[in-house]
């Protein structure tokens, strides 16, 4: 009986997933999308459970353990840790695909097309698992966030990948020898580690998006192994979502995939930046900054990863309130790669209760800078570097930036003059209309807020 109903259930679940992604296009409908996605998932799981004939206890215990870990993780994780959590969930998702592929291999020993799909599933599954764990360790700062490189790195990495593919092809072409699958697994796991080790913190948005895509494709490949269309559809949706996001991230950094994956960006530039000379800058105190903001009519705030590190978003919200109360127009300019994952800044500012219609993307807001009194840069660096527009020799030349330098006054909250991730000196800091506000983002903003409250 259930065998006849199950295809219909899977079809409904697919509709649920498609609508869930579709409704994400607008904050007003997005929550509805989550609910329909949940319903789709619930239907599919219940339908599948009805088909299963043995081992119920083990399955329910497994689901129970997963839910018991997942729920507190989702509720207790602070919003600043969302990139880490995302990396972790890519690891779990990919590991699930890889393990199911492994089990299918030993259970049925498939061949032909199914074996090819199974090889792809386990290759992507295992490599995404270790790659995501390394990404997690870098984001959590359990290991250095700068790129770790050694001579011949790309050669070694691609060699490992090639070896994995050769073993994979051998398994598809003939009868797999006993050593082949374990070797294939080991090579895939190793390649995942090698893939992410040379990638630096600022490239994380691209890498996380790419790993998201891999995890999706692994799930789709599993759909081919199990001959399950629902898995194919869900995996394809996730795969294309991740791919689009990583393309957007690459464009926002004016770089290609190969450059992100094999370029070891940060390393290169740190060497080049060694020659910078000290140049004079103008600095200001919180009360001076408060006075300038007080007399402004329009302010654009540009947040960056530094804001997340300093946990300054709630203080920024207080500043936003104080300025709006004075009738000053305050907007936020969000660069696509600000932070450590796509959309990172938006989530943090939304958490601090800043209305989302004040969060504007680069193309929407760049035209406003010339008519803006103050551009306030908080913890952002490379994304406001005017060298990207002017200096053809600069490694970041051509990168789309926020035109903060075109505002009447620019204020930059920064801990010190040390160069940003890319290791390139920022012309913005030396301009005549720029004031450097040295200090911790959170403390400095709260100093300004106090000053504004006092002068009222």
């Amino acid at each position: 009986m259930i065998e006849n109903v199950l295809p219909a259930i899977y079809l409904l679940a697919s509709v649920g997933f498609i609508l869930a992604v579709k409704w994400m296009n607008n904050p007003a409908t997005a929550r509805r999308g989550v609910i329909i996605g949940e319903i789709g998932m619930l239907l599919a799981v219940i339908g599948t459970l009805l088909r299963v004939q043995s081992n119920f206890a083990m399955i329910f215990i497994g689901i129970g353990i997963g839910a018991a870990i997942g729920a507190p993780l989702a509720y207790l994780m602070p919003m600043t840790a969302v990139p880490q959590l995302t990396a972790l969930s890519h690891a779990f998702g990919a590991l699930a695909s890889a393990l199911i592929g492994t089990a299918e291999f030993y259970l049925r020993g498939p061949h032909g097309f199914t074996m090819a799909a199974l090889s792809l599933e386990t290759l992507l599954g295992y490599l995404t698992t270790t790659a995501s764990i390394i990404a997690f360790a870098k984001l959590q700062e359990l290991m250095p966030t700068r790129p770790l490189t050694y001579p011949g790195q790309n050669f070694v990495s691609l060699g490992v990948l090639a070896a994995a593919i050769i073993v994979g092809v051998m398994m598809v072409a003939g009868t797999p020898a006993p050593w082949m699958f374990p070797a294939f697994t080991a090579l895939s796991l190793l390649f995942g580690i090698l893939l992410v080790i040379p990638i630096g913190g600022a490239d994380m948005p691209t890498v996380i998006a790419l790993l998201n895509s891999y995890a999706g494709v692994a799930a789709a490949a599993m759909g081919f192994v199990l001959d399950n269309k629902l898995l194919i559809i869900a995996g394809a949706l996730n795969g294309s979502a991740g791919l689009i996001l990583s393309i957007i991230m690459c464009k926002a950094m004016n770089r290609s995939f190969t450059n992100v994956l094999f370029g070891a960006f940060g390393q290169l530039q740190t060497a080049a930046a060694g020659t910078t000379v000290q140049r004079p800058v103008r600095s200001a105190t919180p009360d001076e900054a408060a006075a300038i903001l007080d007399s402004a009519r329009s302010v654009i705030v540009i947040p960056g990863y530094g804001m997340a590190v300093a946990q300054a978003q709630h203080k920024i919200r207080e500043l936003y309130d104080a300025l709006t109360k004075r009738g000053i127009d305050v907007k936020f300019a969000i660069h696509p790669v600000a932070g450590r994952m796509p959309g990172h800044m938006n989530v943090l500012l939304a958490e601090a209760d800043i209305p989302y219609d004040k969060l504007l993307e680069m193309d929407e807001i760049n035209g406003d800078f010339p008519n803006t009194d103050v551009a306030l840069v908080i913890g952002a660096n490379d994304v406001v570097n005017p060298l990207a527009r002017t200096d053809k020799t600069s490694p970041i030349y051509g990168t789309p930036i926020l035109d903060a330098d075109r505002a009447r006054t620019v204020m930059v909250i920064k801990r010190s003059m040390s160069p940003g991730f890319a290791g390139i000196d920022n012309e913005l800091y030396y301009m005549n209309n720029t004031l450097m506000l040295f200090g911790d983002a959170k403390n400095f903003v709260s100093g300004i807020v106090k000053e504004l409250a006092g002068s009222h």
Partner: protein
Amino acid sequence: MQSYEFGLYVFMLAAFLGFELVKRVSPLLHTPLMSLSNAISAIAVVGGILVTGDKDATELTRWLGFTAVVCASLNVVAGYLITDRMLRMFRKREPEKK
């Protein structure tokens, strides 16, 4: 038509549909989009259930399946809950002001 051939068509169409849908997602929601798509691909839990509950399952494949069920259901639960938690934060205007 072979079943896998049919599957390839499904994959192709779903991938193009995904591209069109995701392109329209506002950059504002890129983080929740990623956690949602993660939750969706955790439908792999279905595969885990089938492998664990297979009549012919050996000790090894059963435990592999079990671990997969744990990982995937963790992703289902965490993925949906955190997406919803994030989306709840996106408000158009501050509630306390009229």
